[in-house]
């Protein structure tokens, strides 16, 4: 297999991370723009790496652990880039890029999957999986933003106003960014779940409607909807909402790990 695109992707992400860190410490606009540009180039190279692998293995990117993790990293980068451009704020790039890099690199270390491909394919299934992974990527982003919020809030409350506080986004912007990210996740997971049920309905002879994954997915949906409501209008806005967002992501991680690996009959890597 050709390693050009994975190498280019890793290089672009690493350089982009370095530049985002430099941007955070110096605040130079040109450095920030270069970081964004390299992230964009990384996304393009990552896309071709996924495409090339899928073509080589004659399967979809999310068929195995490698593909799922790599696709997750790609969608996380894509969501972040969209959020950065929408909110015109690149100070958090230094905190998000490590997650993208970890998922991209870990995907390469994951063992090769020898299992046969899923019994059913098609557009409905593809959209169901892709939207679900997009939702998890968006939730991961809101998790990072909530952590930054809590860190910055703590510094401001304790009057520890060092270099970092002057460079990070204002607290209310971090809240808005986190809410935007959760909104992307909510819409994606809602559509993805509906498509999943449609797909199961078509193949009801092979798949059960009683999978613990369905329960936890609906729980995730409900918890994030609750966060979205509480964070915008009620006395929970601020730190409490951020803590709820972090708790919600713990449930997402549980869904990804314990439920997928040990409890679910039909979900392995997404």
């Amino acid at each position, binding site marked *: 297999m050709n390693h050009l695109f994975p190498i280019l992707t890793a290089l672009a992400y690493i350089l982009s991370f370095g530049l985002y860190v430099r941007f955070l410490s110096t605040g130079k606009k040109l450095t920030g723009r270069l970081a964004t540009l390299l992230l964009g180039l990384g996304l393009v190279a990552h896309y071709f790496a996924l495409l090339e692998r899928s073509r080589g293995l004659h399967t979809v990117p999310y068929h195995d652990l490698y593909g799922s993790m790599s696709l997750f990293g790609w969608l996380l980068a894509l969501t972040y880039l969209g959020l950065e451009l929408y909110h015109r704020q690149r100070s958090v790039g230094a905190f998000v890029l490590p997650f993208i890099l970890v998922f991209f690199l870990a995907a390469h270390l994951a063992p090769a999957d020898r299992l046969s491909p899923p019994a059913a394919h098609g557009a409905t299934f593809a959209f169901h999986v892709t939207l679900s992974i997009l939702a998890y990527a968006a939730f991961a982003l809101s998790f990072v933003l909530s952590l930054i919020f809590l860190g910055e809030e703590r510094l401001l409350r304790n009057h520890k106003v060092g270099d970092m506080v002057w460079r*990070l986004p204002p607290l209310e912007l971090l809240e808005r960014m986190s809410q935007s990210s959760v909104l992307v996740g909510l819409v994606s997971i809602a559509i993805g779940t509906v498509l999943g049920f449609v797909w199961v309905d078509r193949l009801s002879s092979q798949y059960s409607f009683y999978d613990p994954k369905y329960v936890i997915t609906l729980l995730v949906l409900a918890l994030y909807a609750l966060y979205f409501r509480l964070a915008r209008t009620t006395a929970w806005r601020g730190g409490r909402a951020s803590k709820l967002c972090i708790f919600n992501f713990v449930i997402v991680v549980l869904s990804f790990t314990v439920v997928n690996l040990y409890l679910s009959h039909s979900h392995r890597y997404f």
Partner: protein
Amino acid sequence: MEIVLVGLNHRTAPVEVRERVSFTAEQSRRAAEELRARGILEETLVLSTCNRSEVYGVPPESSHESAGGLSSFLSEFHSVRPDILGVSLYHHYDQAAVRHLFRVAAGLDSMLLGEAEILGQVREAYRFAHEHGATGPVLNRLFQGALEAGKRVRTETDLGTRPMSVASAGVKLAERIFGKLSERKALVIGAGTISEQVVSNLRDRGIAQLHVMNRSRDRAEELAKQFGGEVVGWGEWETALKSPDVVVSSVSAEEAVLRREMVERTMVVRGNRALFLMDLGVPRNIDPSVAELYNVYVYNTDDLSEIVQQNRNARESEIPLAQGIVEEHVAKFLSWQASVELVGLVDALRTKMKEERAAFIRSRMEPMKHLTETDRAQVEKLMDEMLEKLLLEPAQRLRGEKELRRKIQNVEALRDLFLSNREKP
């Protein structure tokens, strides 16, 4: 092509002298015109701000000689006795004048290190002088270089990024919580000097709505009118605290003006919307336990003073970097200046050599009667070719090699050496 600078600033002159020597736009234009009409300067630019009045120029003669004329002119123009003005004025020439201007544009010479306004003031002074035809090639290049250096210092260093007063630090901190203040509301309790400074900062940052509360309603109305705010009656806490995002308190009171239970009740009504409280009173106006409430941020004078001190240290640590940028641009300007002067010197040398050649040929060929006109023309052509060949390489190197131009420190000495009658290029 020398440069002279005569001026005074906050370090050399008290405010009483500075205000007498400051220039309005019209005075700047008139002074520039007169200086050129009297032959004191060929190019002129007046830079006048609240902290400095400086005249930059290119004199027709030596810069040292013109500086005296310039000082007398300033004394006469502003009707200030020469002995009063003389002790406050500084004179800089050539490289020192260039360096001074670049440091001014970079904010390194400002009263408040790294202040942002000076770059705009230099830009405006240059635009004004240029529009009125007071500048020429030298000052154009000089001020473009200064603006470039100032812009680089602002973008590449942290010299001007941090707030340097308690009032501005408080307002900047509010921006760390709310972002832009253009959609935010503020309540200012007290109407003294400190409150006025904070209100001015809030207005500069575009605060949407401003309420002023003070024991003396007259003074509150005065402050509110000055900055386009509204007055809230003293003691109407329930109403006053319901909507603002930023509350600034600076009143003289023995007990806390904002108590914990008041703010607690307000936060319930506000639905825990974030509240930034700036306590600038001594003794403190806000009960310290208010800081424990959810989504309430409290900063008192000491907290803000500490931040200002940190920022001052941070700014000072940026000075070497800013000075490095200034020196880079000074060297760039001096290199350009040297290239223009040296190329002019080579041209003058060429003219002189041609004259010498003509005289030399006339005297030496006079006895050579056997030479035809064609032979004589041929000899003249060969000598011209040789002179061109001798001068071509140095001229090309002077145009192309920055390092060579940098090494030639004293163009005047070269001119004295090769052009004995000091022909100016």
